């Protein structure tokens, strides 16, 4: 009876996640791809191995095999498929994490999953994000995570990482550190970790060299390249975002500080700093906010399911930081990011936009 009841709860829990995903998708679906995102689909490998040409080549090939009207219509269709795949893989990943946590008997896994779900789901539906390369980067990453959790076909992970770099070279610092962190949680996966890093870096270097020969391209490591009011606005956006996320940051830090893995911590910190400066200040603060939350919630989720110590510190942190009543845990902060979502591109979200406008208006700036 108990097992049946628990299965029912599990099912209901995931049905709720699916319903939530559907509702959010339906509400915010932009139904067109912005010109900025569309531009990436015009880059392909016809002229050589240039960075960011993978999706253009791949969808171009699909278009040739099975044309759906003109090329733009094909791009739109496959972007929709990509969005569906992203949501499907996200929920599948959460399901696998749930099963893993259940095996180990950690009671807080559903809460950590909910936190992750709130960050994962409401992102790529919005017009400014729909069909962006980052959606495919996340698909690749989620697929890798699923394989690592499943503990089968792990040899595919380096290949997926290479595809990630081919889709967008920024994969190397946006998601690769996180992937490495997950791979190297098990000592017997060291070779896979090395192959992933070496493969990705090699492809990155080759594509950059080719790019410098083939065409003028954006220098992905050229930080602080913009000036003027846009730059100031981005800085204010990012600073305000960090300020509003302080409760979550302090929770995350208190969960992660127990880990004694300096190398990984350095990698993740480097990734966070690069995302903050490059993506956040240079071109896309909304995306930076998304990546920062994804990195944070992935790490916490991994901590919770992989170690008892992590699960314990999560529980303790929830008690410390949420307004815990009667010794029980409350999860207000888990839904907190949802108040800011969906994230946009050139600014983080509607709330911060309006807040900045309010202050600048009041101060007469």
């Amino acid at each position: 009876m108990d097992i049946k009841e628990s299965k029912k709860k599990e099912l209901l829990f995931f049905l709720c996640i699916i319903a939530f995903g559907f509702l959010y998708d339906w509400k915010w679906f932009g139904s067109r791809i912005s010109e900025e995102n569309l531009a990436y689909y015009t880059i392909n490998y016809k002229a050589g191995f240039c960075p960011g040409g993978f999706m253009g080549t791949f969808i171009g090939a699909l278009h040739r095999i099975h044309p759906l009207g003109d090329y733009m219509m094909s791009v739109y269709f496959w972007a929709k498929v990509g969005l569906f795949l992203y949501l499907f893989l996200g929920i599948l990943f959460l399901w696998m994490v749930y099963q893993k946590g259940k095996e180990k008997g950690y009671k807080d896994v559903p809460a950590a999953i909910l936190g992750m779900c709130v960050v994962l789901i409401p992102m790529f539906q919005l017009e400014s994000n729909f069909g962006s390369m980052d959606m495919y980067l996340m698909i690749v990453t989620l697929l890798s995570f699923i394989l690592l959790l499943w503990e089968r076909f792990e040899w595919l992970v380096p290949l997926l990482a290479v595809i990630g770099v081919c889709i967008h070279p920024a994969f190397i610092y946006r998601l690769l550190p996180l992937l490495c962190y997950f791979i190297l949680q098990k000592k017997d996966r060291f070779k896979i970790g090395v192959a992933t890093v070496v493969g990705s870096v090699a492809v990155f270097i080759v594509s950059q060299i080719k790019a410098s020969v083939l065409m003028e391209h954006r220098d992905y490591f050229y930080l602080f390249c913009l000036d003027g009011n846009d730059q100031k606005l981005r800085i204010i956006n990012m600073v305000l975002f960090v300020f509003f996320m302080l409760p979550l940051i302090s929770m995350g830090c208190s969960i992660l500080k127990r880990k004694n893995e300096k190398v990984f911590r350095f990698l993740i910190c480097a990734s966070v700093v690069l995302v903050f400066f490059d993506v956040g200040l240079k071109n896309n603060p909304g995306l930076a906010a998304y990546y920062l939350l994804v990195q944070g919630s992935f790490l916490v989720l991994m901590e919770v399911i992989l170690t008892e110590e992590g699960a314990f510190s999560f529980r303790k942190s929830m008690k410390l930081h949420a307004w815990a009543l009667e010794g029980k845990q409350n999860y207000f902060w888990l839904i907190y990011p949802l108040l800011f979502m969906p994230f946009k591109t050139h600014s983080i979200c509607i709330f911060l936009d309006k807040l900045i406008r309010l202050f600048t208006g009041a101060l007469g700036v």
Partner: protein
Amino acid sequence: MNQEKKRQQQFIFATLLLTGILFVANYAGVVNKYNATILSLNYNYGFICRGLIGTLYHGLDVILPMDLLNYNMVIRFYFVTTLLFFALMLYFGVSCYKDSTAESRNRVVFLVLLLFCVIAPSFSAEYNFGRIDMFMIICSILGVLCILKRKLEFLVVPLGMAGVMFHEGYVLMYLNIILVLLFYRWMSGEKKYAFLFGATLLGASVLFLYFHFFSFSEGEDILREVTLNARRLCDKGTYHISLVQAEILGVDLGETEVIYHLRNLIEFPCFVIFTIPLWFPLVRFFIKLLKRGRTIQDKLKYLALAVGSFTLLPDFLFKVDYGRWILAMIVYYIVVLLFIHGQKDELALKCLNEVEPKGSYRYLYWIFAMGYMLCLTPFADVSIDILMGRTSGILNKYIFHFWIE
């Protein structure tokens, strides 16, 4: 004791944070022409329908040493009243929190947060910012506070009447909250509430009938003055013509609303399906409660709590603002649940405990409910919300073909 105070402060902080973010995110800094035009109706033109808010506004104009009769001041007026409204709702939430049992306080916190997930975006967004419904809710919540605190209870009668003076639709939309709670107390064996129940119902009904049948008698005479006044209060002088026609001249706009009825016909079933996770536990709770009631009085009072929102049925059948009706229904059930906690109704709390998921899922359910609400809000009027508007658009385009976009 200190610990308890700290928890309470944390609860208030969380509610303020949530409300602040939702308010800023949804606030557009504009008042739509309907909500501005309504301020032009006042009792200088006789005891007319929906004239109370305009009268209060014009009264403020006389008292304050500044000219309030322009659009910018209308925005500021509604901004301040909206903030006061949120403050009152928070006070109500905190009162219920303080009065509830220690075991049920977590649920009160979530109910209050859920309430703010509904009202904060709905009354901050462009469409309903400054909507008269806000003032109607204020009347009902003040009434509920009087009943809950057992102080100045006689005020429920004038509050009920004031609600009708704000908008005659109050009788169907929000008066039910006060009436149901008075009935609840009456059935709990406190006879004086029978009188208050009767007086509130009578007062509100008389006013409703008056506004419905007699308040348009001098319509033609005052029309010119009202429209002049409305032009001053609205953005760029464009006022809401239908509102003036309907409320001053008594013109029946029913024929123009056929298309809206069709829209409602598609949206409402979709909304019911989409919100199954929200209303299903509520139905289970009330069924359980009705089964457990020992005496006839118990069963009657719980039945009243369960079906009190059905006063909205005529609105659902004959009117088109489904977004507002649904908002009224949600507010009704959350306020009733909060009242049950403040009242410490043991049987109801026991049934709530049984209906709620157990263990850590209990809190996750509330988080989901909040997430759901955030998806569904802000509520509008004819179209329930963005989500339903989109759904009905697609269904109409591919299946029903009721209207051409």
